[in-house]
């Protein structure tokens, strides 16, 4: 794809004898919602680590909008416009919701070698933070400490923090993790509102959400992308059914007829 926003080639990472990422070739088009699915142990955590910068690849390249980022540290990738949310909630627990998001804004508003002025009253930080909170529906919880939020609210906050920096690519690691049906539906709705304004690479287990949101899917099995394309094409791809969906349904035939 000529104008892909994110493109990986031959991305490989081994841990001892295990090849967690096996020549991964992934392409994400601008403004699309691209979902990565795959059975447990497929290497999704490693892939996220490689894309976000926490894990260094042994082979391959990652191009983000024409810039090679495979050797860039985590914070530099964020500065380039790649924001991520965490599967296991990772927030600033002793700060308030607004503080959390304001920090995310602060990281992208110049340097932080300011030692005197109270940053808690800095409009340039608070205002964008509040609007990110409004976007995810958390603005009435702005003054609450994070450790008092419900699980679902914390997941929303994860998204708000990723949005606060005005990113070009959102890397969402199982945003629905640990959510009940109501909360999941709310999250899907939220992500739908984001669709089209920002590119999203979504790692998810929740198939309903995936098929509701994704423009394209890639299937990751044993560290390899075995199929990539539109949801319906993936759904009926025999290799995919065998490796993943097939295991759950106990028979490709039955599914197709039903």
């Amino acid at each position, binding site marked *: 794809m000529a104008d892909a926003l994110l493109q990986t080639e031959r991305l490989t990472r081994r841990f001892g004898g295990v090849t967690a990422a096996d020549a991964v070739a992934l392409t994400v088009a601008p403004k699309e919602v691209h979902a990565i699915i795959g059975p447990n142990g497929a290497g999704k955590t490693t892939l996220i680590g490689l894309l976000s910068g926490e894990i260094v690849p042994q082979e391959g390249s990652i191009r983000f909008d024409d810039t090679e980022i495979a050797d860039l*540290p*985590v914070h530099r990738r*964020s500065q380039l416009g790649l924001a991520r949310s965490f599967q296991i909630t*990772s927030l600033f627990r002793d*700060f308030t919701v607004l503080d959390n998001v304001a920090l995310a804004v602060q990281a992208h508003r110049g340097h*932080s070698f300011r030692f005197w*002025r109270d940053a*808690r009253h*800095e409009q340039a930080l608070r205002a964008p933070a509040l609007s990110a909170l409004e976007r995810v529906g958390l603005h009435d919880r702005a003054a609450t400490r994070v450790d008092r939020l419900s699980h679902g609210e914390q997941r929303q906050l994860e998204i708000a923090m990723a949005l606060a920096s005005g990113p070009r690519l959102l890397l969402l690691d199982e945003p629905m993790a640990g959510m009940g049906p109501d909360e999941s539906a709310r999250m899907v709705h939220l992500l739908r509102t984001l669709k089209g304004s920002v590119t999203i690479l979504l790692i998810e287990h929740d198939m309903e959400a995936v098929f509701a949101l994704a423009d394209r899917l890639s299937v990751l099995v044993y560290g390899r992308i075995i199929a990539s394309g539109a949801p319906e094409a993936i759904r009926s791809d025999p290799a995919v059914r065998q490796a993943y969906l097939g295991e759950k349904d106990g028979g490709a035939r039955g599914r197709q007829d039903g």
Partner: protein
Amino acid sequence: MSVSLDPPLATVRQSAVTARTVFTAGLVVVLALVPVYALATGETFGVALFTRTVILAIGAVSLNLIMGYGGMVSFGHAAYLGIGGYAVGILAKEGIGSGFVQWPAAVAASALYALVVGALSLRTRGVYFIMITLAFAQMIYYVAIGLDRYGGDDGLTIYKRSDFAGLIDLNNKIVFYYLCFAILLASIFVIARQVNSRFGLALRGTRSNERRMRAIGFPTFRYKLVAFVISGALCGLAGALLANHTSFISPAIMHWTRSGDLIVMVVLGGLGSLFGPVIGAVIFLLLQEGLSRVTEYPDLILGPILLLVAIYVHGGIGGLLEGRRRG
């Protein structure tokens, strides 16, 4: 629905009147009145003891910046007391008695050492970091022992206090005490501004969740390093004050157990609070002083007290005053 743009702060509370604030205010008043009491009763020993306490409190305040707010447990902070002190001592011995040269030199030398140690140590964290800062402090301790020209193991006597060309006479114990006290208050004030500034928030965010900080785009290393340097520099100033106070400097001030003392002061007073280190310093030094009057073996009591504090008290004694909250 409108939301106030300055929500209550999760930490660093400055306006709520609690048992803790009353205690702290009272402590500050007591400290301010120590010389007055001494003058009134003619008992000047208290001034010496409290001068030392205030000076070490400055050291504890500097350590609290990186420990309490930055989450970096440095077990080598006494090194800066030594570097600051030796800067004064060495310059004095070489004939440079002016405080205008000695004190900036003390601060600069400490800052430089902190820069080097920090640049190397901050690549690690947790236990590694503790051990490495300890090792670097031990290194400078041995360097000082090897400096025969400046007394080596026996230490160096400083015959004249820093000279400030008549602006202020450090030989006057009362004046000196108030100078140290003023520096303590000024340091706390500066740090109070810092902790809510962009820099301070970045530092505290790093303490809270460094992985997250990096993910949102902060180059955390440089902020930690700058905090480390500021902390070292301030502690170096305390070292210069200490050298003046005792008119003497020796490697013993840099022994790693002195670094341990500083950590104890910070923890006793409650991590990450502005006046906590002062409370901790006062308690620790009074405890040491009191116990050594009562028994020939004070550490037999002090040791277990520290162990018990570590086991049972979260958030230090300051936390006790505020009602237990996990620091």
